[in-house]
């Protein structure tokens, strides 16, 4: 029993230290910034634009991501498509790549023949808002697929078999049986996608540029104010970002908490 108590104590202390470290990190921002400065920032139109842009683009990315990653993850989990293992591995590559690398590749692609055609005839991405959404979606989707595939792998296939034997087509059994059981996983994927898109910087700035009142998201604003040696503004913005991220995370915990038990 004594050994057990020692172990419990050590790991508790570790957790407290880790969390404490992060809290200290956030609090250190206060060393530079005062409440007055925060208030001023709240009223600056540039900043308000950046916050709005960040939230709206992150939301758009999240929606797009879910529509693409849910079926993709399901396919990877259930179907026996040729080269499934290869596809699976490929999905992991964007996750490991540096966002700037991804941004640079998109930049290059949009300059190829096909890319130019798209830019001229479909939608302008470079240095425009759609570019923010495009590149953030590219980064977020593989992550979302990973989360959802893990989940689908745990949903026993017997549920779908039963539904089909009761007369439901494959599509119908996916919609009426698998999706309701995936509510929490989808929610988690959405909120993680949102968080990742919100904080994304490297690829966004490469493809959409850092253009005030146009493509200036919150992370880009932080970068710009640091670049302009405006330290006060930098930390105010960091605090906004932390706040939104915290809100996001709290929501995940609240919603995922309601789990569904199945055999």
């Amino acid at each position, binding site marked *: 029993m004594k050994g057990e108590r020692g172990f419990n104590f050590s790991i508790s202390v570790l957790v407290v230290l880790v969390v404490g470290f992060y809290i200290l990190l956030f609090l250190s921002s206060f060393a530079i910034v005062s409440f007055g400065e925060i208030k001023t920032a709240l009223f600056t139109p540039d900043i308000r634009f950046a916050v709005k842009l960040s939230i709206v683009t992150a939301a758009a990315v999240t929606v797009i991501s879910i529509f693409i990653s849910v079926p993709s993850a399901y396919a990877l989990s259930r179907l026996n498509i040729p080269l499934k293992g290869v596809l699976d591995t490929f999905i992991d590559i964007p996750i490991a790549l540096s966002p700037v690398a991804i941004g640079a590749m998109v930049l290059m692609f949009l300059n190829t023949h096909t890319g130019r055609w798209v830019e001229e005839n479909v939608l302008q991405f470079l240095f425009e808002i759609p570019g923010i959404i495009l590149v953030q979606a590219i980064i977020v989707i593989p992550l979302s697929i990973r989360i959802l595939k893990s989940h689908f792998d745990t949903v*026993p296939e*017997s*549920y779908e*078999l*039963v*539904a*089909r*034997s*009761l*007369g*439901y*087509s*494959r599509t*119908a059994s996916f919609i*009426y*049986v698998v999706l*309701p*059981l995936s509510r929490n996983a989808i929610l988690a994927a959405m909120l993680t996608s949102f968080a990742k898109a919100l904080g994304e910087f490297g690829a966004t700035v490469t493809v959409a540029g850092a253009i005030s009142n146009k493509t200036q998201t919150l992370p880009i604003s932080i970068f710009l104010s640091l670049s302009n040696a405006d330290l006060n503004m930098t930390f105010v913005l960091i605090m906004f970002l932390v706040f939104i991220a915290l809100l996001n995370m709290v929501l995940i915990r609240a919603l995922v908490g309601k789990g*569904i*038990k*199945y*055999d």
Partner: protein
Amino acid sequence: MIEIESLGLKLGEFTLTDFNLKIKDGEYYVLLGPSGVGKTILLETIAGFHKLRWGRILINGTDVTHMPPEKRDIAFVPQTLGLFPHLTVEENIIFGAKAKHIKVKDALPDAKRFSGIMGISSLMKRFPHELSGGERQRIALARALIIKPKLLLLDEPLSSVDPPVRNQLQYFIKELHGTLGFTSLHVTHDFQEAFLLGDVVSLLLNGKIQQTGKKNEIYFHPRTRDAAEFLGFRNIFQGEVIKADETKLCLMTEGIGNIWIERNFRNSEITVGERVFWGIRPEEIRILRGDTKSEERNNPVSGKIINLFEKAFSHTLIFKIGATDNHFEIEIPHMAYRKLQITTGMAATVELSVERIWVARK
């Protein structure tokens, strides 16, 4: 009438060749075999979840081999029951209604009736995870039967249920079948369950159907050694046929001596000189009281009781045969045990009943 003709199947490591099956309307057909032999995959194939390599599946004359599961009119109850955790019992039961474009309110009366038959009326608004194994089993059955399928597939339905509940459910299913008369293919590794429920039992061993028939036939007269072992024959030996006439066979087994077996149509083809397997069930070996004499035609064997396992209602004795290392496993009811005053180490003579010895060539 469900007909499966020359079904051949390969899924991963599992292969099945030339499988044939015929189930009459309203018949309760049991497929009996050890776990892991692929019974689940077979059922899933019949339901339409896997493609078969060769063969056909016909339901009342219609070839459904290439139809998707939802069009086959076959209900499937998996081993885990597959009750939808996010729906109430009621919603689970009427789940099949939507696929047939029946409105919820029209499906409810039927659901009520069924749940009455199943004895689960009071549970309609509850969720599956709140209920016991027995209750869930009945809900799964209600859900499957309410759509009046042409064939009900049951994959080891009672394997995850506690023994007392299991017996209850077996009787329940038997009665239900009597009342509703559905056609069923039930797969299990429990031969007692097979014999209770099955109108017809097929024994599936080593990828092939070894034997099909009414239960008594299979139970008392398995056709192969493997089948015998699976069905609980604990005492299996090899012997050489030294005498054969119209009424009797005599086998010589080393260490045991001559064994007389009754001749019948099952072993009629066995001739002198053949090496065969023979066996007898633990319950069919009689221990003689100390002073009783026996004749050779009753297959007496002398030996010693070397071990004794007391169970609740019967006891298992390990009987060492003569001077050999072979032994018989004998099962005697508690009463007999007391009467005979059996102790470990005691010498005894046992008799093997001539009609109860099983013999087979392979």
